[in-house]
């Protein structure tokens, strides 16, 4: 890969671009005025259950829920 001299701070902290853009989107949502703010936060709720597998067996599922990733 090319030189990593100009790695942005969030990449150096281990975040992916997706996480970064989600955080930014959340900040924008928090800046809205009242009825729109509640609506937009309501719209972007996250809920799913993820389970990793090892050797053909599922392990305990992790429920990722509620507020969108912050």
């Amino acid at each position, binding site marked *: *890969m090319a030189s990593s001299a100009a790695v942005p701070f969030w990449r150096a902290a281990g975040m992916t*671009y997706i996480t970064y853009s*989600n955080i930014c989107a959340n900040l924008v949502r928090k800046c809205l005025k009242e009825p729109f703010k509640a609506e937009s936060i309501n719209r972007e709720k996250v*809920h*799913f259950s993820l389970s990793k*597998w090892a050797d053909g067996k599922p392990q305990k599922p992790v*429920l990722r829920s509620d507020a969108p990733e912050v």
Partner: protein
Amino acid sequence: MAMAVFRREGRRLLPSIAARPIAPISSPLSADRDEGTLGVRSISTQVVRNRMKSVKNIQKITKAMKMVAASKLRAVQGRAENSRGLWQPFTALLGDNPSIDVKKSVVVTLSSDKGLCGGINSTVVKVSRALYKLNAGPEKDVKFVIVGEKAKAIMFRDSKNDISLTVTELNKNPLNYAQVSVLADDILKNVEFDALRIVYNKFHSVVAFLPTVATVLSPEIIEKESEVGGKLGELDSYEIEGGETKGEILQNLAEFQFSCVMFNAVLENACSEMGARMSAMDSSSRNAGEMLDRLTLTYNRTRQASITTELIEIISGASALEAAK
């Protein structure tokens, strides 16, 4: 043995009932038969009446499910079509390389959590398995990430050693980008890949859904391919602002591309699921209606036959009395 004889007799009396397989109805005509005084076996009207009632209820339920699926479809369809614009610029920029040969492929299979939606889940699983066969080889590695309960159940049977992640309950809240991007992020963090192949049902119309594969490459592979030339080779002719390197931008782009493609794929799959459920429930209601018609005919015939038998008995009894006088 008695049941076999009964079935033979039943077939003589009811030649028009052919057993049409509908999933919810499975109870055969039970052994409640009415043996008249002459030993004639006939199906009692009570049994037919019960069966008619249950078929009618099932018809109502499937009709209601069809309406629900139609309304949900209308809601999701607009969003799915709008989300197509999210990944089109990526394909214009980076090109589409479905036949790329990489060491580590990850197949992301999208399916539904609920059933009664026709054959869409099995087609997706078939395509995933075909991709596996295509991409497996001596140095090559294929892993599965499964979204949705239905595909998990099917794939568990024979490919369970290749599954690395399963995701369920995605449809609990209305689908939105935040959710899918968190999911994409999890997949990126947990699975190593050179190429991601997302298998989903693309929604063409209410009756047409085709299984499609969308390919997203990792940034390292994009760099390698850009050296080779072709669409990706033209990336160097773009000016990069902001002091980032090409590798940086490629990485951001690849992650964002994955997230956008996943979002569109999830929405299209949801549309296809609703469409498939609509048509499945529609044909189910139609079958139930036909079954109801045939049962009504049988019921009437049985009823008339029993009335005729009673009349004959009464009349012959009366005439016997007359003759005896």
